[in-house]
């Protein structure tokens, strides 16, 4: 077992000659909340996209708990243990809340039931469905969404949609959770609540979390360590206090 849950080695990508991200080295220890910050266009989401298999990295590679995942498809990477949320929420809008979470439980071997068992309605199907539903309810309860479980996802208020997306990601049973700007569009009160939720998730699920965020209060409130990206390059990394006081970081954020 590797010391780190996630370890990226010289990760980089170029689009048609433009190097969007270069030489990104992030090491995240177990149970850590790790922040990835940087100005707009710095390549943060691109890093997420590489880690989840949306883009194939041009340079370098990355390991999850010592296992190299570079080159796998999104589905496989998710099954190996990286789950994510999106900057602009991507729920299954026309499905009910509970079904959104149940899709997340799809690959869990505990609820395995093949196509023909479902069609023929063998006992295994009913067992799997019953257990998946129970598990989904547990998860929804944790996020305070139990009452809304039969709503269509797009009818939920914004804050609950964010929570649902996190619940769905957790349902896939990840080792590492990637949160892409979870606090975007939230008011301070909601942000505060979200911080509690993220901490709770870390403690309750023993989760390791990597998050992109602009809201510095959230970053300084919950992150253990940070990496700052600017123009695709690592500007600084380390503890929160140390990084945020780094003159280069201040310059990148505030300009000259």
């Amino acid at each position, binding site marked *: 077992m590797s010391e780190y849950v996630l370890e990226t080695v010289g990760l980089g990508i170029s689009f048609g000659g433009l190097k969007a991200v270069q030489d990104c080295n992030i090491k995240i220890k177990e149970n850590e909340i790790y922040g990835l910050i940087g100005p707009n266009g710095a390549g943060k*989401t691109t890093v997420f*996209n590489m880690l989840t298999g*949306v883009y194939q990295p041009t340079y370098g590679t990355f390991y999850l708990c010592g296992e190299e995942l570079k080159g796998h498809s999104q589905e496989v990477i998710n099954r190996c243990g990286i789950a994510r949320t*999106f900057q602009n929420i991507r729920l299954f809008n026309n499905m009910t809340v509970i079904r959104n979470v149940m899709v997340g439980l799809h690959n869990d071997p505990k609820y395995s039931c093949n196509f023909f068992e479902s069609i023929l309605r063998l006992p295994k199907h009913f067992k799997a469905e019953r257990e998946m539903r129970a598990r989904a309810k547990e998860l929804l309860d944790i996020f305070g969404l139990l009452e809304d479980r039969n709503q269509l996802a797009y009818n939920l208020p914004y804050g609950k949609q964010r929570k649902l997306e996190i619940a769905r990601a957790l349902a896939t049973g990840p080792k590492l959770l990637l949160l892409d700007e979870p606090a975007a569009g939230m008011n301070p009160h909601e942000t505060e609540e979200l911080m509690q939720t993220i901490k709770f998730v870390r403690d309750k699920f023993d989760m390791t979390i990597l998050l992109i965020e602009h809201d510095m209060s959230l970053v300084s409130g919950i992150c253990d360590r940070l990496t700052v990206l600017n123009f695709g390059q690592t500007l600084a990394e380390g503890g929160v206090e140390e990084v945020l006081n780094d003159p280069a970081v201040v310059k990148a954020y505030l300009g000259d």
Partner: protein
Amino acid sequence: MEFISAIISGLSMGGTYAMIALGYTMVYGIAKMLNFAHGDVIMVGAYMLFVAIVSAKLPVWVGIMIAILVCTIFGIVIERLAYKPLRGASPLAVLITAIGVSFLLQALAQIVFGSEQKNVSALMINGSLKLGEVSIDYSTLVTLAVAAVIMVALTLFVKLTKVGRAMLAVSEDRDAARLMGVDVNFVIMITFIIGSALAGVAGVFKLMKSPAVTPTLGAMPGIKAFTAAVIGGIGSIPGAMVGGVLLGIVEAICLKTPIAAYTDAIEFAILIIILLVKPSGLLGKKRREKV
């Protein structure tokens, strides 16, 4: 020799396909929708020529003007009534609506004009230019020349005029263009006007080679022209021209071999293969879906 003559008769069909494909590619590139009814607007144009030249006995050039004008009006009406309400809806909804409009036009034409074949031979250009052993029809030359002129004119229009640049902007990113103050609805309307006028012109060229007018005359050429537009790279104006001519040549070569009966199947197979192997076509730009 046989091969050269196949290429020349391929140019004859290819010219018409190129003409239709130009309209297709404009609309697809800018409005981002597959206008299934494009082929049927050609049919409307052909019937207008029939009404003007045969029924009303007007001079040919008046008939052509009327046909192009009516096609343009049809284009505007279709866009306003059927497509504009769906701006921002799923592409699938727009596609199904376009199929509906195509059906609607065919059914209307049959109710108004009957299903029997009409003939308009006044536009036929007979005779051909002889170069040694090969001969090229004048109609082919006219079609190719006009298609080339239109292609150049469209390219210049898009590159040099304000409306043209607005079209480019809308085709790149509709929302961003809107934010930059481009009137997206207006630009799409202009696109449809140009596309439908081109369909009218295509109707004229169709009747230059073949006098038959039926309610379904636009359906197959429409789909074939889409194939041509895909071969050339959808959204690319020179690509439509290249694709149209290539498709015409492929068709002519197929028709001269013993597998002639499979011509349509072969063309469709080419479409599938190109979409799978190189969806951006010969001259098209490849875009990436953003995440």
